[in-house]
């Protein structure tokens, strides 16, 4: 004779998509609420936070630049940083220029706003690396083959 069993439905798991969609929004809202509630001085608080974090961020950025350039010998293998055929750039903000290395007695600068200096030959006409020729003037460099001396 026929018998048909029934059973309680298993507990429905929380849909993962819903969690993934909700979590970042909740985190953002929570962060905003925390900023509003915890930090003092009202709307000046975010500016203060940025000011506090800025030196650390600069340090991290310069360390990353040095590390990146340090991974590649600047004057090795018959290639070298040489002045590009380009007049010095004078429109950079001094604050944005960061010393990221040294080569042949020159201090190499990179422009923070333009990002980290690219590995040689990978990007940009001048590899985004400069030497300071005068206050406010930066001559772009190029990573090129040079004849053996």
């Amino acid at each position, binding site marked *: *004779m*026929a*018998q*048909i*069993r*029934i*059973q*309680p*439905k298993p507990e429905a798991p929380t849909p993962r998509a819903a969690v993934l969609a909700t979590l970042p929004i909740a985190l953002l809202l929570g962060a905003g609420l925390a900023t509003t509630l915890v930090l003092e001085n009202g709307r000046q608080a975010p500016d203060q936070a940025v000011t506090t974090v800025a030196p650390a961020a600069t340090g991290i950025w310069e360390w990353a630049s040095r590390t990146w350039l340090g991974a590649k010998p600047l004057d090795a293998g018959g290639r070298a940083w040489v002045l590009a055929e380009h007049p010095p750039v004078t429109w950079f903000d001094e604050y944005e220029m960061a010393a990221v290395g040294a080569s042949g007695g020159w201090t190499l600068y990179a422009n923070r706003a333009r990002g980290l200096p690219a590995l040689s030959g990978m990007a940009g006409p001048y590899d985004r690396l400069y030497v300071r020729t005068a206050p406010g003037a930066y001559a772009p460099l190029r990573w090129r083959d040079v004849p053996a001396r």
Partner: protein
Amino acid sequence: MKANSDLIPFDELSAYELAPGAADPMRYAVLGRNDFVFGRVRRLIASSARGEIVYLVVGTAPSNFKDGRGEERLVPLAWAELNLLRRQVRLPQLSPLAFRRLPIYHPGAALPTEIPFPTPRPDEVEFWDIA
């Protein structure tokens, strides 16, 4: 026949599902003695306490009955055999007259705890057949 509030239409029992591998006889054809067509399964009545389907609600709209089409009667599932391949519920011991003596299903009304098998009375044609 005592009423029982534990018996609930299975489609209203949202917290329950059929056990894995169990056949769902909804809309199966219901056949009686000599393959007389009683109708189709319209609803399942379940008991959450017993954890099983107890009654089938059989609608007689597509039946072989000349009269009384469209009524719905309760059939205990324990009397039935399921033919999954043909999507049939078979009740080889139940004659058309016996089926007509089963309780009518009224949606929302209290359901009987047990349904005795409708044995034919001595004044009925079926009894004469047996005798």
